[in-house]
Protein backbone atom coordinates (compact mmCIF):
# COMPACT_ATOMS: atom_id res chain seq x y z
CA UNK A 1 0.00 0.00 0.00
CA UNK A 2 1.12 3.50 -0.78
CA UNK A 3 0.80 5.50 2.46
CA UNK A 4 0.48 8.82 0.59
CA UNK A 5 -3.04 7.90 -0.52
CA UNK A 6 -6.26 7.83 1.48
CA UNK A 7 -7.67 4.43 0.56
CA UNK A 8 -11.08 5.09 2.14
CA UNK A 9 -11.38 8.05 -0.24
CA UNK A 10 -10.18 5.96 -3.20
CA UNK A 11 -12.63 3.16 -2.41
CA UNK A 12 -15.63 5.45 -1.96
CA UNK A 13 -14.75 7.37 -5.12
CA UNK A 14 -14.52 4.11 -7.03
CA UNK A 15 -17.76 2.81 -5.54
CA UNK A 16 -19.54 6.02 -6.44
CA UNK A 17 -18.26 6.01 -10.01
CA UNK A 18 -19.10 2.32 -10.42
CA UNK A 19 -22.60 2.87 -9.08
CA UNK A 20 -23.37 5.80 -11.38
CA UNK A 21 -21.74 4.21 -14.44
CA UNK A 22 -23.60 0.92 -13.94
CA UNK A 23 -26.95 2.63 -13.45
CA UNK A 24 -26.27 4.82 -16.49
CA UNK A 25 -25.60 1.66 -18.48
CA UNK A 26 -28.99 0.26 -17.47
CA UNK A 27 -30.60 2.84 -19.76
CA UNK A 28 -28.08 3.21 -22.58
CA UNK A 29 -28.02 -0.18 -24.36
CA UNK A 30 -31.79 -0.32 -24.80
CA UNK A 31 -31.73 3.18 -26.34
CA UNK A 32 -28.92 2.23 -28.74
CA UNK A 33 -30.51 -0.98 -29.95
CA UNK A 34 -34.21 -0.17 -29.83
CA UNK A 35 -33.59 2.93 -31.97
CA UNK A 36 -32.46 0.70 -34.85
CA UNK A 37 -35.21 -1.87 -34.33
CA UNK A 38 -37.78 0.93 -34.53
CA UNK A 39 -36.09 2.31 -37.65
CA UNK A 40 -36.31 -1.11 -39.32
CA UNK A 41 -39.98 -1.43 -38.36
CA UNK A 42 -40.77 2.02 -39.72
CA UNK A 43 -38.88 1.20 -42.92
CA UNK A 44 -41.21 -1.80 -43.32
CA UNK A 45 -44.16 0.53 -42.79
CA UNK A 46 -42.97 3.03 -45.38
CA UNK A 47 -41.99 0.38 -47.93
CA UNK A 48 -45.13 -1.79 -47.58
CA UNK A 49 -47.62 0.94 -46.66
CA UNK A 50 -49.24 -1.46 -44.15
CA UNK A 51 -50.76 0.34 -41.17
CA UNK A 52 -49.97 -2.61 -38.89
CA UNK A 53 -46.26 -1.75 -39.13
CA UNK A 54 -47.01 1.84 -38.18
CA UNK A 55 -48.85 0.63 -35.09
CA UNK A 56 -45.93 -1.66 -34.22
CA UNK A 57 -43.42 1.14 -34.75
CA UNK A 58 -45.39 3.56 -32.60
CA UNK A 59 -45.67 1.11 -29.72
CA UNK A 60 -41.95 0.37 -29.54
CA UNK A 61 -41.29 4.07 -29.98
CA UNK A 62 -43.23 4.71 -26.76
CA UNK A 63 -41.02 2.26 -24.86
CA UNK A 64 -37.95 3.82 -26.49
CA UNK A 65 -39.19 7.25 -25.39
CA UNK A 66 -39.68 6.13 -21.79
CA UNK A 67 -36.22 4.61 -21.62
CA UNK A 68 -34.62 7.60 -23.35
CA UNK A 69 -36.36 10.16 -21.12
CA UNK A 70 -35.47 8.43 -17.88
CA UNK A 71 -31.92 7.65 -18.94
CA UNK A 72 -31.09 10.96 -20.59
CA UNK A 73 -28.49 13.04 -18.78
CA UNK A 74 -27.66 10.28 -16.26
CA UNK A 75 -24.22 10.25 -17.87
CA UNK A 76 -23.69 13.91 -16.97
CA UNK A 77 -23.22 12.83 -13.34
CA UNK A 78 -20.11 10.97 -14.43
CA UNK A 79 -18.74 14.24 -15.75
CA UNK A 80 -19.51 15.95 -12.43
CA UNK A 81 -17.50 13.23 -10.73
CA UNK A 82 -14.53 13.70 -13.06
CA UNK A 83 -14.24 17.33 -12.04
CA UNK A 84 -14.80 16.85 -8.32
CA UNK A 85 -13.59 13.39 -7.33
CA UNK A 86 -11.12 12.63 -10.10
CA UNK A 87 -9.45 15.99 -10.66
CA UNK A 88 -5.89 14.62 -10.94
CA UNK A 89 -7.12 12.24 -13.62
CA UNK A 90 -9.16 14.92 -15.42
CA UNK A 91 -6.19 17.23 -15.52
CA UNK A 92 -3.74 14.52 -16.55
CA UNK A 93 -5.86 13.29 -19.49
CA UNK A 94 -6.14 16.82 -20.85
CA UNK A 95 -7.87 17.17 -24.20
CA UNK A 96 -7.67 13.45 -24.98
CA UNK A 97 -10.79 12.93 -22.92
CA UNK A 98 -12.19 16.42 -23.35
CA UNK A 99 -12.19 16.43 -27.16
CA UNK A 100 -14.26 13.28 -27.76
CA UNK A 101 -16.73 14.27 -25.03
CA UNK A 102 -17.08 17.77 -26.48
CA UNK A 103 -17.73 16.35 -29.95
CA UNK A 104 -20.29 14.02 -28.42
CA UNK A 105 -22.05 16.88 -26.69
CA UNK A 106 -22.16 19.20 -29.66
CA UNK A 107 -22.69 16.89 -32.61
CA UNK A 108 -24.42 13.74 -31.51
CA UNK A 109 -26.56 15.03 -28.66
CA UNK A 110 -28.09 17.80 -30.75
CA UNK A 111 -28.54 15.53 -33.76
CA UNK A 112 -30.27 13.02 -31.53
CA UNK A 113 -32.42 15.58 -29.71
CA UNK A 114 -33.56 17.33 -32.87
CA UNK A 115 -34.66 14.22 -34.69
CA UNK A 116 -36.26 12.66 -31.63
CA UNK A 117 -38.69 15.59 -31.66
CA UNK A 118 -39.58 14.79 -35.28
CA UNK A 119 -39.96 11.10 -34.36
CA UNK A 120 -42.49 11.82 -31.64
CA UNK A 121 -44.19 15.02 -32.80
CA UNK A 122 -43.97 14.64 -36.54
CA UNK A 123 -46.18 11.66 -37.45
CA UNK A 124 -48.82 13.73 -39.20
CA UNK A 125 -46.76 16.85 -39.72
CA UNK A 126 -43.97 15.71 -42.01
CA UNK A 127 -43.86 13.33 -44.93
CA UNK A 128 -43.46 9.58 -44.32
CA UNK A 129 -39.98 9.60 -45.78
CA UNK A 130 -38.84 12.60 -43.76
CA UNK A 131 -40.17 10.97 -40.62
CA UNK A 132 -38.36 7.75 -41.49
CA UNK A 133 -35.15 9.70 -42.08
CA UNK A 134 -35.56 11.33 -38.64
CA UNK A 135 -35.96 7.91 -37.02
CA UNK A 136 -32.81 6.57 -38.67
CA UNK A 137 -30.90 9.75 -37.78
CA UNK A 138 -32.00 9.42 -34.16
CA UNK A 139 -30.61 5.89 -34.14
CA UNK A 140 -27.33 7.00 -35.69
CA UNK A 141 -27.16 10.02 -33.38
CA UNK A 142 -27.50 7.84 -30.28
CA UNK A 143 -24.82 5.50 -31.55
CA UNK A 144 -22.48 8.35 -32.45
CA UNK A 145 -22.85 9.61 -28.87
CA UNK A 146 -21.71 6.22 -27.68
CA UNK A 147 -18.83 6.21 -30.17
CA UNK A 148 -17.07 9.21 -28.61
CA UNK A 149 -17.45 8.00 -25.06
CA UNK A 150 -16.16 4.57 -26.00
CA UNK A 151 -13.18 6.10 -27.83
CA UNK A 152 -12.32 7.97 -24.64
CA UNK A 153 -12.69 4.81 -22.58
CA UNK A 154 -10.57 2.82 -25.05
CA UNK A 155 -7.80 5.40 -24.71
CA UNK A 156 -7.76 4.73 -20.98
CA UNK A 157 -7.27 1.02 -21.72
CA UNK A 158 -4.67 1.67 -24.41
CA UNK A 159 -3.29 5.22 -24.33
CA UNK A 160 -1.95 6.20 -27.77
CA UNK A 161 -1.74 9.24 -30.01
CA UNK A 162 -0.61 11.65 -27.31
CA UNK A 163 2.47 13.04 -25.63
CA UNK A 164 2.88 14.12 -22.03
CA UNK A 165 3.72 17.77 -21.45
CA UNK A 166 5.69 18.11 -18.17
CA UNK A 167 5.10 21.89 -18.13
CA UNK A 168 1.34 21.47 -17.83
CA UNK A 169 1.20 17.90 -16.42
CA UNK A 170 -1.27 17.09 -19.18
CA UNK A 171 -1.38 14.63 -22.03
CA UNK A 172 -1.80 16.43 -25.31
CA UNK A 173 -3.30 14.87 -28.39
CA UNK A 174 -0.64 14.33 -31.03
CA UNK A 175 -2.66 12.33 -33.51
CA UNK A 176 -6.46 12.34 -33.38
CA UNK A 177 -6.76 9.44 -35.82
CA UNK A 178 -4.46 7.26 -33.73
CA UNK A 179 -6.79 7.84 -30.77
CA UNK A 180 -9.97 7.48 -32.81
CA UNK A 181 -8.94 4.44 -34.84
CA UNK A 182 -6.88 2.58 -32.26
CA UNK A 183 -7.66 -1.14 -32.58
CA UNK A 184 -8.88 -1.16 -28.97
CA UNK A 185 -11.29 1.71 -29.67
CA UNK A 186 -12.64 0.13 -32.86
CA UNK A 187 -13.22 -3.24 -31.19
CA UNK A 188 -14.63 -1.70 -28.04
CA UNK A 189 -17.13 0.41 -29.97
CA UNK A 190 -18.29 -2.41 -32.23
CA UNK A 191 -18.49 -4.95 -29.41
CA UNK A 192 -20.36 -2.59 -27.10
CA UNK A 193 -22.95 -1.42 -29.61
CA UNK A 194 -23.56 -4.89 -31.01
CA UNK A 195 -24.11 -6.19 -27.47
CA UNK A 196 -26.53 -3.30 -26.93
CA UNK A 197 -28.41 -4.31 -30.09
CA UNK A 198 -28.62 -7.85 -28.75
CA UNK A 199 -30.04 -6.59 -25.46
CA UNK A 200 -32.67 -4.53 -27.26
CA UNK A 201 -33.60 -7.50 -29.47
CA UNK A 202 -34.08 -9.68 -26.38
CA UNK A 203 -36.17 -6.94 -24.79
CA UNK A 204 -38.48 -6.85 -27.84
CA UNK A 205 -38.68 -10.64 -28.06
CA UNK A 206 -39.32 -10.94 -24.31
CA UNK A 207 -42.10 -8.35 -24.25
CA UNK A 208 -43.66 -9.84 -27.39
CA UNK A 209 -43.44 -13.31 -25.83
CA UNK A 210 -45.42 -12.00 -22.86
CA UNK A 211 -48.19 -10.88 -25.22
CA UNK A 212 -48.23 -14.30 -26.87
CA UNK A 213 -48.43 -16.04 -23.50
CA UNK A 214 -51.35 -13.76 -22.62
CA UNK A 215 -52.84 -14.30 -26.10
CA UNK A 216 -52.98 -10.53 -26.64
CA UNK A 217 -51.88 -8.60 -29.75
CA UNK A 218 -50.80 -11.87 -31.37
CA UNK A 219 -50.07 -10.55 -34.87
CA UNK A 220 -48.27 -7.53 -33.45
CA UNK A 221 -46.14 -9.78 -31.23
CA UNK A 222 -45.25 -12.22 -33.99
CA UNK A 223 -44.20 -9.45 -36.38
CA UNK A 224 -42.14 -7.81 -33.65
CA UNK A 225 -40.41 -11.11 -32.93
CA UNK A 226 -39.51 -11.63 -36.59
CA UNK A 227 -37.80 -8.23 -36.76
CA UNK A 228 -36.16 -8.50 -33.35
CA UNK A 229 -34.92 -12.08 -33.74
CA UNK A 230 -33.46 -11.38 -37.20
CA UNK A 231 -31.81 -8.18 -35.99
CA UNK A 232 -30.74 -9.94 -32.78
CA UNK A 233 -29.20 -12.88 -34.61
CA UNK A 234 -27.02 -10.57 -36.70
CA UNK A 235 -26.21 -8.53 -33.59
CA UNK A 236 -25.21 -11.48 -31.40
CA UNK A 237 -23.08 -13.02 -34.17
CA UNK A 238 -21.33 -9.69 -34.55
CA UNK A 239 -20.97 -9.40 -30.76
CA UNK A 240 -19.19 -12.76 -30.76
CA UNK A 241 -16.90 -11.74 -33.65
CA UNK A 242 -16.03 -8.38 -32.06
CA UNK A 243 -15.68 -10.04 -28.66
CA UNK A 244 -13.03 -12.24 -30.22
CA UNK A 245 -11.40 -9.09 -31.61
CA UNK A 246 -11.50 -7.49 -28.16
CA UNK A 247 -9.90 -10.58 -26.61
CA UNK A 248 -7.08 -10.47 -29.18
CA UNK A 249 -6.46 -6.81 -28.39
CA UNK A 250 -6.57 -7.51 -24.67
CA UNK A 251 -4.00 -10.30 -24.98
CA UNK A 252 -1.62 -7.86 -26.66
CA UNK A 253 -2.34 -4.59 -24.82
CA UNK A 254 -3.53 -5.75 -21.39
CA UNK A 255 -2.00 -9.19 -20.85
CA UNK A 256 -2.55 -9.04 -17.08
CA UNK A 257 -6.28 -8.57 -17.57
CA UNK A 258 -6.27 -11.43 -20.08
CA UNK A 259 -4.48 -13.75 -17.64
CA UNK A 260 -6.79 -12.73 -14.76
CA UNK A 261 -10.01 -13.30 -16.69
CA UNK A 262 -8.89 -16.88 -17.36
CA UNK A 263 -7.33 -17.43 -13.92
CA UNK A 264 -4.08 -18.30 -15.67
CA UNK A 265 -1.10 -18.20 -13.26
CA UNK A 266 1.53 -20.14 -15.07
CA UNK A 267 2.00 -19.19 -18.70
CA UNK A 268 1.96 -21.96 -21.23
CA UNK A 269 1.99 -22.69 -24.92
CA UNK A 270 -1.20 -24.16 -26.27
CA UNK A 271 -3.19 -22.75 -23.34
CA UNK A 272 -6.69 -24.10 -22.85
CA UNK A 273 -9.80 -22.03 -22.35
CA UNK A 274 -11.61 -22.69 -19.08
CA UNK A 275 -15.21 -23.14 -20.17
CA UNK A 276 -16.47 -23.68 -16.64
CA UNK A 277 -14.61 -23.24 -13.37
CA UNK A 278 -14.91 -22.52 -9.67
CA UNK A 279 -12.18 -20.25 -8.31
CA UNK A 280 -10.85 -21.00 -4.81
CA UNK A 281 -7.83 -20.02 -2.69
CA UNK A 282 -4.63 -21.72 -3.70
CA UNK A 283 -3.38 -24.14 -1.07
CA UNK A 284 0.28 -23.61 -2.02
CA UNK A 285 0.12 -19.94 -1.11
CA UNK A 286 -3.21 -19.26 0.66
CA UNK A 287 -2.06 -15.91 2.09
CA UNK A 288 -1.57 -14.41 -1.34
CA UNK A 289 -4.98 -13.00 -2.21
CA UNK A 290 -4.04 -12.75 -5.86
CA UNK A 291 -3.10 -16.38 -6.18
CA UNK A 292 -6.17 -18.51 -6.82
CA UNK A 293 -6.81 -21.99 -8.09
CA UNK A 294 -9.76 -23.93 -9.49
CA UNK A 295 -11.74 -26.37 -7.35
CA UNK A 296 -13.27 -27.58 -10.58
CA UNK A 297 -12.69 -26.71 -14.20
CA UNK A 298 -13.68 -27.87 -17.61
CA UNK A 299 -11.10 -26.79 -20.14
CA UNK A 300 -11.12 -26.71 -23.93
CA UNK A 301 -7.54 -27.51 -24.97
CA UNK A 302 -5.54 -24.89 -26.88
CA UNK A 303 -8.51 -22.58 -27.35
CA UNK A 304 -7.16 -19.70 -25.23
CA UNK A 305 -3.99 -19.59 -27.36
CA UNK A 306 -6.11 -19.51 -30.48
CA UNK A 307 -8.39 -16.84 -29.03
CA UNK A 308 -5.41 -14.62 -28.30
CA UNK A 309 -3.17 -15.08 -31.34
CA UNK A 310 -5.10 -17.23 -33.86
CA UNK A 311 -2.52 -19.95 -33.23
CA UNK A 312 -3.38 -23.05 -31.19
CA UNK A 313 0.17 -23.34 -29.88
CA UNK A 314 1.01 -19.73 -29.04
CA UNK A 315 2.38 -18.85 -25.60
CA UNK A 316 0.01 -17.09 -23.20
CA UNK A 317 1.73 -15.47 -20.21
CA UNK A 318 0.20 -16.14 -16.81
CA UNK A 319 0.04 -13.81 -13.83
CA UNK A 320 3.32 -15.20 -12.50
CA UNK A 321 5.13 -14.67 -15.82
CA UNK A 322 3.98 -11.09 -15.92
CA UNK A 323 4.95 -10.47 -12.29
CA UNK A 324 8.22 -12.39 -12.07
CA UNK A 325 9.21 -12.22 -15.72
CA UNK A 326 9.90 -14.95 -18.22
CA UNK A 327 13.27 -14.53 -19.94
CA UNK A 328 12.55 -17.30 -22.42
CA UNK A 329 9.48 -15.44 -23.68
CA UNK A 330 11.10 -12.01 -23.42
CA UNK A 331 8.82 -10.84 -20.60
CA UNK A 332 10.58 -8.55 -18.11
CA UNK A 333 9.81 -8.84 -14.38
CA UNK A 334 7.36 -6.25 -13.18
CA UNK A 335 9.93 -4.77 -10.78
CA UNK A 336 11.88 -3.58 -13.83
CA UNK A 337 8.85 -1.57 -14.89
CA UNK A 338 8.45 -0.33 -11.32
CA UNK A 339 12.07 0.88 -11.36
CA UNK A 340 11.53 2.70 -14.67
CA UNK A 341 8.30 4.19 -13.36
CA UNK A 342 10.17 5.53 -10.36
CA UNK A 343 12.73 7.10 -12.69
CA UNK A 344 9.91 8.78 -14.63
CA UNK A 345 8.28 10.17 -11.48
CA UNK A 346 11.65 11.39 -10.17
CA UNK A 347 12.40 12.97 -13.56
CA UNK A 348 9.12 14.89 -13.42
CA UNK A 349 10.03 16.19 -9.95
CA UNK A 350 13.50 17.20 -11.16
CA UNK A 351 12.10 18.85 -14.27
CA UNK A 352 9.82 21.01 -12.17
CA UNK A 353 12.63 21.97 -9.77
CA UNK A 354 15.01 22.74 -12.64
CA UNK A 355 12.35 24.89 -14.30
CA UNK A 356 11.86 26.86 -11.10
CA UNK A 357 15.63 27.33 -10.80
CA UNK A 358 15.90 28.31 -14.49
CA UNK A 359 18.38 25.49 -15.08
CA UNK A 360 17.80 24.65 -18.74
CA UNK A 361 20.47 21.97 -18.95
CA UNK A 362 18.96 20.08 -16.03
CA UNK A 363 15.49 20.55 -17.55
CA UNK A 364 16.62 18.88 -20.78
CA UNK A 365 18.16 15.97 -18.91
CA UNK A 366 15.10 15.47 -16.73
CA UNK A 367 12.78 15.71 -19.73
CA UNK A 368 14.79 13.11 -21.64
CA UNK A 369 14.64 10.74 -18.65
CA UNK A 370 10.90 11.33 -18.33
CA UNK A 371 10.21 10.69 -22.00
CA UNK A 372 12.34 7.55 -22.02
CA UNK A 373 10.46 6.05 -19.07
CA UNK A 374 7.05 7.67 -19.34
CA UNK A 375 5.30 4.56 -20.62
CA UNK A 376 5.98 2.97 -17.21
CA UNK A 377 5.11 6.11 -15.21
CA UNK A 378 2.29 4.50 -13.22
CA UNK A 379 4.40 1.50 -12.15
CA UNK A 380 6.48 3.85 -9.99
CA UNK A 381 3.69 3.85 -7.39
CA UNK A 382 3.93 0.12 -6.74
CA UNK A 383 7.38 -0.39 -5.27
CA UNK A 384 6.03 -1.39 -1.86
CA UNK A 385 3.12 -3.45 -3.07
CA UNK A 386 3.70 -4.87 -6.56
CA UNK A 387 1.02 -7.52 -5.94
CA UNK A 388 -1.52 -4.71 -6.25
CA UNK A 389 -0.75 -4.79 -9.99
CA UNK A 390 -2.84 -7.95 -10.28
CA UNK A 391 -6.58 -7.35 -10.65
CA UNK A 392 -9.13 -9.44 -8.78
CA UNK A 393 -9.00 -12.84 -10.46
CA UNK A 394 -12.41 -14.10 -9.24
CA UNK A 395 -14.23 -10.94 -10.41
CA UNK A 396 -12.43 -10.92 -13.77
CA UNK A 397 -12.94 -14.65 -14.28
CA UNK A 398 -16.62 -14.78 -13.36
CA UNK A 399 -17.63 -11.58 -15.17
CA UNK A 400 -15.96 -12.83 -18.36
CA UNK A 401 -17.49 -16.29 -18.16
CA UNK A 402 -20.98 -15.04 -17.27
CA UNK A 403 -20.85 -12.65 -20.25
CA UNK A 404 -19.66 -15.33 -22.68
CA UNK A 405 -22.06 -18.04 -21.45
CA UNK A 406 -25.02 -15.68 -21.72
CA UNK A 407 -23.84 -14.52 -25.14
CA UNK A 408 -24.09 -18.08 -26.45
CA UNK A 409 -27.47 -18.50 -24.74
CA UNK A 410 -28.70 -15.42 -26.61
CA UNK A 411 -27.41 -16.85 -29.89
CA UNK A 412 -29.38 -20.04 -29.24
CA UNK A 413 -32.45 -18.02 -28.29
CA UNK A 414 -32.39 -15.98 -31.52
CA UNK A 415 -32.04 -19.13 -33.64
CA UNK A 416 -34.81 -20.91 -31.72
CA UNK A 417 -37.19 -17.98 -32.12
CA UNK A 418 -36.52 -17.71 -35.83
CA UNK A 419 -37.06 -21.45 -36.28
CA UNK A 420 -40.29 -21.35 -34.25
CA UNK A 421 -41.46 -18.37 -36.31
CA UNK A 422 -40.84 -20.07 -39.64
CA UNK A 423 -42.43 -23.31 -38.43
CA UNK A 424 -45.45 -21.36 -37.22
CA UNK A 425 -45.10 -22.72 -33.67
CA UNK A 426 -44.42 -19.54 -31.74
CA UNK A 427 -47.73 -19.39 -29.87
CA UNK A 428 -47.64 -23.00 -28.77
CA UNK A 429 -44.04 -23.01 -27.54
CA UNK A 430 -44.85 -21.70 -24.09
CA UNK A 431 -41.59 -22.90 -22.59
CA UNK A 432 -39.57 -20.80 -25.02
CA UNK A 433 -41.87 -17.84 -24.61
CA UNK A 434 -41.17 -17.97 -20.86
CA UNK A 435 -37.45 -18.35 -21.55
CA UNK A 436 -37.56 -15.17 -23.65
CA UNK A 437 -39.11 -13.19 -20.79
CA UNK A 438 -36.58 -14.70 -18.38
CA UNK A 439 -33.79 -13.63 -20.75
CA UNK A 440 -34.54 -9.89 -20.43
CA UNK A 441 -32.78 -9.54 -17.04
CA UNK A 442 -30.07 -11.94 -18.29
CA UNK A 443 -29.31 -9.53 -21.14
CA UNK A 444 -28.73 -6.75 -18.61
CA UNK A 445 -26.56 -9.03 -16.48
CA UNK A 446 -24.43 -9.94 -19.52
CA UNK A 447 -24.09 -6.30 -20.52
CA UNK A 448 -23.06 -5.21 -17.02
CA UNK A 449 -20.66 -8.17 -16.73
CA UNK A 450 -18.87 -6.97 -19.84
CA UNK A 451 -18.26 -3.60 -18.22
CA UNK A 452 -17.22 -5.20 -14.92
CA UNK A 453 -14.57 -7.16 -16.81
CA UNK A 454 -13.45 -4.11 -18.78
CA UNK A 455 -13.16 -1.82 -15.77
CA UNK A 456 -12.28 -4.06 -12.82
CA UNK A 457 -10.11 -6.30 -14.96
CA UNK A 458 -7.84 -3.36 -15.77
CA UNK A 459 -7.28 -2.39 -12.15
CA UNK A 460 -5.18 -0.95 -10.63
CA UNK A 461 -5.08 1.34 -13.65
CA UNK A 462 -7.31 4.26 -14.45
CA UNK A 463 -5.04 4.86 -17.46
CA UNK A 464 -3.21 1.70 -18.41
CA UNK A 465 0.41 1.76 -17.17
CA UNK A 466 0.37 5.54 -16.70
CA UNK A 467 -1.94 6.40 -13.84
CA UNK A 468 -3.13 4.11 -11.05
CA UNK A 469 -6.62 4.70 -9.69
CA UNK A 470 -5.28 5.78 -6.30
CA UNK A 471 -3.28 8.65 -7.88
CA UNK A 472 -6.27 9.87 -9.87
CA UNK A 473 -8.55 10.93 -7.02
CA UNK A 474 -8.95 14.45 -5.63
CA UNK A 475 -7.95 15.08 -2.06
CA UNK A 476 -11.44 15.67 -0.76
CA UNK A 477 -13.22 14.40 2.32
CA UNK A 478 -14.11 10.71 2.00
CA UNK A 479 -17.27 11.44 4.02
CA UNK A 480 -18.62 13.79 1.36
CA UNK A 481 -18.03 11.17 -1.33
CA UNK A 482 -19.86 8.67 0.87
CA UNK A 483 -22.79 11.09 1.23
CA UNK A 484 -23.13 11.59 -2.51
CA UNK A 485 -22.81 7.83 -3.03
CA UNK A 486 -26.01 7.33 -1.00
CA UNK A 487 -27.71 10.29 -2.70
CA UNK A 488 -26.99 8.76 -6.08
CA UNK A 489 -28.14 5.37 -4.93
CA UNK A 490 -31.50 6.89 -3.93
CA UNK A 491 -31.82 9.01 -7.09
CA UNK A 492 -30.92 6.26 -9.53
CA UNK A 493 -32.99 3.64 -7.74
CA UNK A 494 -35.96 6.00 -7.95
CA UNK A 495 -35.30 6.45 -11.67
CA UNK A 496 -34.98 2.70 -12.21
CA UNK A 497 -38.25 2.08 -10.35
CA UNK A 498 -39.94 4.83 -12.42
CA UNK A 499 -38.57 3.24 -15.60
CA UNK A 500 -39.83 -0.23 -14.74
CA UNK A 501 -43.24 1.05 -13.57
CA UNK A 502 -43.85 3.24 -16.63
CA UNK A 503 -42.57 0.58 -19.01
CA UNK A 504 -44.70 -2.16 -17.46
CA UNK A 505 -47.72 0.14 -17.51
CA UNK A 506 -47.23 0.91 -21.20
CA UNK A 507 -46.65 -2.77 -21.96
CA UNK A 508 -49.82 -3.77 -20.14
CA UNK A 509 -51.76 -1.13 -22.11
CA UNK A 510 -50.26 -2.56 -25.29
CA UNK A 511 -50.12 -1.18 -28.82
CA UNK A 512 -52.78 1.27 -29.87
CA UNK A 513 -53.00 4.25 -32.15
CA UNK A 514 -52.62 6.75 -29.30
CA UNK A 515 -50.43 9.82 -29.07
CA UNK A 516 -47.07 10.38 -27.48
Amino acid sequence: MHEAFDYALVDWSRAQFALTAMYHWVFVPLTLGLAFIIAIMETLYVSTGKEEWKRITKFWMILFGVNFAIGVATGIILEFEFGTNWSNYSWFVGDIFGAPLAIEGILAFFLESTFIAVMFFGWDKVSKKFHLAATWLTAFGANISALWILVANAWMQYPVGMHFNPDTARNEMGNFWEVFLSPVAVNKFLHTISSAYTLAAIFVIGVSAWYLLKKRHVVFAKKSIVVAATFGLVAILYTIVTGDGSAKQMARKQPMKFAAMEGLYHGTSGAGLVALGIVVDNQEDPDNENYKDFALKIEIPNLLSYMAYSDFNSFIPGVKDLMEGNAEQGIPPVMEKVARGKVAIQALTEYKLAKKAGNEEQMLLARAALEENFKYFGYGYFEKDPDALVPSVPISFYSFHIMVALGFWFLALMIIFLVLTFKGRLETSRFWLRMAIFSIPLAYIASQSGWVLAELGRQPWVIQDLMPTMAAVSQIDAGSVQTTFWLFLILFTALAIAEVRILTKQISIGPKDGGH
Partner: protein
Amino acid sequence: MILKRILRFYYEGFRRMTWGRTLWTIILIKLFIMFAILKLFFFPDFLGTRFSSDEERSDYVIEQLTKKP
Protein backbone atom coordinates in the same frame (compact mmCIF):
# COMPACT_ATOMS: atom_id res chain seq x y z
CA MET B 1 -41.09 32.06 -41.32
CA ILE B 2 -39.21 28.76 -41.02
CA LEU B 3 -38.37 29.54 -37.41
CA LYS B 4 -42.04 30.22 -36.72
CA ARG B 5 -43.00 26.87 -38.26
CA ILE B 6 -40.39 25.07 -36.18
CA LEU B 7 -41.59 26.76 -32.99
CA ARG B 8 -45.19 25.90 -33.82
CA PHE B 9 -44.14 22.30 -34.49
CA TYR B 10 -42.63 22.01 -31.03
CA TYR B 11 -45.49 23.92 -29.39
CA GLU B 12 -48.12 21.67 -30.95
CA GLY B 13 -46.09 18.60 -30.12
CA PHE B 14 -45.81 19.45 -26.47
CA ARG B 15 -49.43 20.59 -26.24
CA ARG B 16 -50.77 17.33 -27.61
CA MET B 17 -48.65 15.13 -25.39
CA THR B 18 -50.48 12.55 -23.27
CA TRP B 19 -48.19 10.07 -21.50
CA GLY B 20 -45.21 12.18 -22.55
CA ARG B 21 -46.12 14.77 -19.91
CA THR B 22 -45.16 12.33 -17.15
CA LEU B 23 -41.81 11.77 -18.82
CA TRP B 24 -41.15 15.48 -19.15
CA THR B 25 -42.00 15.93 -15.48
CA ILE B 26 -39.47 13.22 -14.61
CA ILE B 27 -36.85 14.78 -16.90
CA LEU B 28 -37.32 18.26 -15.38
CA ILE B 29 -37.23 16.99 -11.78
CA LYS B 30 -34.15 14.95 -12.59
CA LEU B 31 -32.35 17.87 -14.24
CA PHE B 32 -33.26 20.12 -11.31
CA ILE B 33 -31.83 17.63 -8.79
CA MET B 34 -28.71 17.16 -10.90
CA PHE B 35 -27.87 20.77 -11.68
CA ALA B 36 -29.51 22.83 -8.93
CA ILE B 37 -28.68 20.51 -6.04
CA LEU B 38 -25.98 17.96 -6.84
CA LYS B 39 -23.78 20.07 -9.10
CA LEU B 40 -24.19 23.24 -7.07
CA PHE B 41 -23.72 21.85 -3.57
CA PHE B 42 -21.85 18.58 -3.95
CA PHE B 43 -19.80 18.71 -7.13
CA PRO B 44 -17.67 21.84 -7.38
CA ASP B 45 -14.85 21.78 -9.91
CA PHE B 46 -12.02 20.78 -7.54
CA LEU B 47 -9.13 22.43 -9.40
CA GLY B 48 -11.25 25.23 -10.84
CA THR B 49 -12.42 26.49 -7.46
CA ARG B 50 -9.14 26.08 -5.56
CA PHE B 51 -6.72 27.68 -7.99
CA SER B 52 -6.88 30.79 -10.09
CA SER B 53 -4.56 29.86 -12.95
CA ASP B 54 -3.66 26.81 -15.03
CA GLU B 55 -0.06 27.11 -13.85
CA GLU B 56 -1.17 26.70 -10.23
CA ARG B 57 -3.34 23.77 -11.23
CA SER B 58 -0.54 22.00 -13.07
CA ASP B 59 1.85 22.64 -10.15
CA TYR B 60 -0.67 21.12 -7.79
CA VAL B 61 -1.26 18.05 -9.95
CA ILE B 62 2.48 17.49 -10.38
CA GLU B 63 2.88 17.78 -6.63
CA GLN B 64 0.13 15.19 -6.19
CA LEU B 65 1.65 12.84 -8.75
CA THR B 66 5.16 13.04 -7.42
CA LYS B 67 4.55 13.10 -3.68
CA LYS B 68 6.59 10.62 -1.69
CA PRO B 69 5.00 8.04 0.60
